[in-house]
């Protein structure tokens, strides 16, 4: 776990809550931080300047998805070639290594599998998570 900041909460629409996390400037491109919001563990990522949040529980077997390696991978190919790409766009679950696209939660190897994502935005310089 990278850190566990106190998340202040603000009321929003019915059933939704906005959680102010920490200043966006504390999460530069390529960085990731795990936050605890209520009873949930959530990974917040800065991928090439855009912020994303993923549930820190892998849809495969519940492992700490967001504590694995932020990485790239071999790109789809029609030949026996290995083209590395997407550096920094993927998270590899800490337990079994399944690859997920950070922005969408989509598992690369199986279209049926997707990790839960949360909307995250920057309000007055603060990262705000909507649950």
């Amino acid at each position, binding site marked *: 776990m990278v850190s566990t900041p106190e998340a202040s909460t603000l009321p929003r629409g019915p059933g939704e809550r906005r959680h102010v996390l920490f200043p966006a400037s504390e999460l530069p491109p390529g960085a990731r931080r795990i936050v605890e919001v209520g009873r949930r563990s959530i990974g917040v990522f800065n991928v090439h300047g855009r912020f994303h949040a993923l549930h820190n529980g892998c849809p*495969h077997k519940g492992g700490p998805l967001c504590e694995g390696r932020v990485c790239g*991978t*071999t*790109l*789809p*190919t*029609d*030949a*026996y070639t*290995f*083209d590395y790409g997407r550096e920094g766009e993927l998270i590899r679950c800490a337990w*079994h*290594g*399944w*690859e997920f696209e950070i922005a969408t939660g989509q*598992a*690369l*190897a*199986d279209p049926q*599998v997707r990790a839960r994502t949360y909307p995250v935005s920057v309000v007055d310089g603060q990262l705000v998570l909507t649950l």
Partner: protein
Amino acid sequence: MFDCDVHNTWGTVEELRPYIAPAFREWFDRGEVPGTRPAFPAAHRAWLHPEDFKRADAVPPGGGNAGSDYELMCEQLLDRHQVDYAVLTGDEPIEVSTLANPYYAQALASAYNDYLVDVWLPRDRRLRGSLVVAPQDPQGAAAEIRRLGDHPGIVQALVSSGAQRPYGDPFYHPIWDACAEVGLPFAVHLGGNAGINGGPTGCGPPTFFWETHALLCETGMGHLASTIAHGVFEKWPSSRLVLIECGIAWVPALLWRLDEDYRALRKETPWLRRLPSEYAHDHVRLTTQPLEQPRDRESLWPALADIGARDMLLFASDYPHWDFESPATLQLPVDWRSAVLDTNARELYRIPSGEEPTQAKEALVDGQHA
């Protein structure tokens, strides 16, 4: 009804002599063979069946090898069980894969293929042939597939499951390429566990024949995994792998394992687009014999149903071998019967329905129905 594994052979291997290429006839006439002449020149496996591996009642009354007497084959199998089509898989020819000399191996395979087309296929319209190739000579095997693969009686290329390396390996891709070009499935039959080929298991040689025979599914596992992992079914979308006599009960477990490991380590094989089990469902076919026998027979099917095996299984009797499966006593789920006994093979081998031979013994002549 299709029987997808029927073993035909010669009365004596001397019947092959006219078909041996001139350059190799001296090898055939004077070269070493296992045991005493006449014998087929191939390395013999180290596991000897203590009762020989043929049905005792299939030895022709006049002598000779079980599977060499066409009339007896009709009586015991084709007529008795109303077989519409029998896919002949030869007997010893797939053992050419054990020979170190790939050129002699392919010459022997080619001789068998000419013998098959010349002697067996004209006998009966129910008979379809498997083109035997020497996988240790991928270029020669590919040339053989292009030479004879478009014969209307030939339905697949055939190799042994004993191999130097698993069949998805790019070493063998000339064979896959030729199969795709000619439109033939690539079939792998139990056997060839001798000579230059790897052993039947990865932990050293087993001891007894029955022990080894039960373990021979392991080579089928290796070929199945390799063919999927190397992207054969992406590279040649029309290609089909047929595993003959390698068992079926292990297939769901292996596909589940392959799916799970692929999901984690997709990056090793970025040419794949789908889960291993999805490729298997669409591209891999498995013969049923010897059908595994759980204590409760019904418990065989749920796992197979999970991978969609109704679309993947082909009935086979393995006549005239010792582990023969009788179509009369075969137990299949009722709603699987027509697929496993007929339509899966019909689709695989591209034999339209309604073309059953009305006169069974009316032969294919010059490639046309007489």
